[in-house]
């Protein structure tokens, strides 16, 4: 009996309780709620079967939000990795100076709250007094022009998040075996060949990790949409998570919101599994 109450078991028990309350139960509740007409604020919880899914899947706004979500995720992940990898390679180079300083500078946006960053970028994008138009001599209503609004949000998101990818890639680069590169140099490989045939393949586990974590983050992104465009102009920047937020916390249709969340859950699971399959990795690298 005494052995049960040792330090290790107590900690594990607390973690199990924590995950049960804050992870497993909410997931179960979302699945169950998706089958109900559910408004917790007035205690409504009526079983409706698959009605919520039917309503969601026949809603044009849902499909346009899905399309926007994929565009947002694809370009955000692509540029986050591109910029992060590029800067990591530069900072890892023997020619680079003040590495610690630049690492800190580049990582700073990542630790800044997204809400604050979003507000600042709303001002930067302002067509009347925004610095972006002034600095580049442009005349674009970034957040109110439907062809620019989503790219503008993607640009802000990439700026905010590339530091994370940079640090991950920098860690990956530091862990690469130096003797392999020395051997390649002796064999006459140039820098591009070294990068393309050695560095990039050796960074595959890190890349996969960054892609999957970015994918999960961006499929759930809504804060920047809420602050910068509220889904507008019209409905041109609605993404799935913003739609879920609006359905749950503006209209209090938790049943519909749960049905959308279940669909999002399935999408993330399928995409993650597909990525593992395509990359041929058995397990998530850490």
């Amino acid at each position, binding site marked *: 009996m005494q052995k049960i109450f040792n330090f290790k078991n107590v900690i594990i028990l607390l973690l199990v309780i924590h995950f049960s309350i804050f992870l497993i139960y909410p997931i179960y509740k979302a699945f169950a709620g998706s089958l109900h007409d559910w408004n917790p604020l007035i205690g409504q919880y009526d079983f409706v079967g698959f009605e919520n899914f039917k309503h969601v899947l026949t809603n044009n706004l849902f499909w346009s939000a899905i399309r926007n979500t994929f565009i947002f995720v694809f370009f955000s992940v692509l540029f986050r990795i591109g910029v992060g990898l590029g800067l990591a390679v530069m900072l890892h180079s023997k020619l680079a100076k003040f590495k610690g300083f630049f690492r800190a500078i580049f990582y700073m946006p990542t630790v800044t709250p997204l809400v604050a960053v979003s507000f600042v970028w709303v001002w930067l994008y302002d067509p009347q007094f925004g610095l972006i138009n002034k600095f580049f001599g442009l005349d674009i*209503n970034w957040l109110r022009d439907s062809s620019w609004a989503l790219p503008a949000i993607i640009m802000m998101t990439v700026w905010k998040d590339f530091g994370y990818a940079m640090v991950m890639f920098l860690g990956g680069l530091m862990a690469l075996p130096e003797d392999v590169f020395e051997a390649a140099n002796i064999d006459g490989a140039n820098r591009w060949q070294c990068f393309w045939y050695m560095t990039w393949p050796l960074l595959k586990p890190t890349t996969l990790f960054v892609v999957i974590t970015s994918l999960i983050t961006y499929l759930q992104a809504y804060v920047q949409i809420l602050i910068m465009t509220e889904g507008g*102009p019209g409905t041109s920047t609605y993404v799935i998570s913003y739609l879920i937020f609006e359905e749950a916390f503006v209209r209090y249709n938790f049943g519909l919101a749960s049905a959308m969340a279940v669909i999002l859950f399935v999408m993330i699971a399928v995409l993650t599994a597909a990525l593992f399959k395509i990359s041929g990795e058995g397990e998530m690298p850490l």
Partner: protein
Amino acid sequence: MKKCFSKLFFLTIICVFLVACSSTSGEAGKRDELLDKGLDVMGQNVLFDPNKLVNEGEPITIEYWTWNDGDPAIEMAKAYEEIYPNVTIEIVINPWEDFWIKLPLALQGSDGPAIFNVHNSQNEILEPYLAPYDIAIEDLQADFNFVDSHIQEGHVYYMDSLINTGNIYYNKDLWEEAGLTEADIPKTWDQFTEVAKTLTQRDGDRLTQAGFNFNGTYDAIYQGLNYQKGILLFKDEGTVVNFDNETTLENTQFLLDLYEVEGVGDKDFGSDANQSFGNGQSAMVYNWGWYFNELQTNYPDINFGVFPTPTPTEETPLAYDRYNGESTPGINENQSDAQQAIAQDFLRFCLANDEYSRKGALALASFPTKRSLAEDPDILAHPVLAEIAPRVERLIWPGAFPATVETTAIQTFEDILFNGKDISQALIDGQSKMESEMRNTNFRSVESSFQFIDEASH
């Protein structure tokens, strides 16, 4: 030693959980034995007699929840506690977003606040938990305007304490620079367009000063414009939104023409008309009373004035605009009888006392519904309230309609303005979306209780 530490740690955690989950409420306070407080009875028809004991003089604590630290009920609570030293009214302030999640959840149990601030936009989620006012409806009607639209099956659960509506805010300095005087204040929309053109400035093709800017405020304007032409916001006995109609089309085209034909503003001239006006870049904007305080707080250098929203002709319209109200408090029907009794008494104290309405009116730049304040010098000295006062009777309230009526209207106008969507098609799509989103609500408009409803176009 290690085992001892583990047990101690485990016990500490259990204690922390128990302390965290325990209730902190207790009845600490004084007893009150003074029946005669030596105070006069307050009020005109809703009366409050302070010369009594409440809760039989025993100490009692109730909670009042609000989202607004300028809520006049907070000062009234202090005054009430002075009269009844055995009563403690704990003020709990939560920001707006948190408030509307926490309050309905707290009201489901038996230990929610006894009394709380109400906003009519949240009517649907509050309705199941509201106790009726323990005040005769005739007394409420005698003391307050607009009570009728809040009577449900012979009961009032909350009503308007203040009302507000739209006005035109104008920059006096820009007005003067353009050679305009007080005599040029427009009464009709045609006159308004001419004034706006005079106030517009360009550097070549580039707009440098908007005569009128409505970026971000379309949803509020179109409702008023429709009412001015006798068109109600809801049809089919108030159950179906009336968005896609000839008048909305005409008014939307009018607003679009102000930018695209008359050139008094531009969709790309800032995304927020209020900010643009505050920065002195727009000469006129349409906004409600709250904007008065916003300007004074955030843009103290702007020298501005207020005039009534113009009308299509100089004839009196069906209604000048929609109004919306700040509500009187709600009482939690799930609380104990003792708590509810104190809440009802405190409510009566607020409603009988003119200070409650006066303080709220001046703090929120909203017109009091209390009849005794209709000609109050403090109220009429306020620039916004002075403009609302002559129009109060001709303001209409459709009821606490679902948010989609406004959010979809904004999306519709953005689709027209920014995405180049055809107006007719945008209105059809907007109507369809509003109807779809209102499908599961039991909303019914109270426009029919408007005293001039017979003048509406059907």
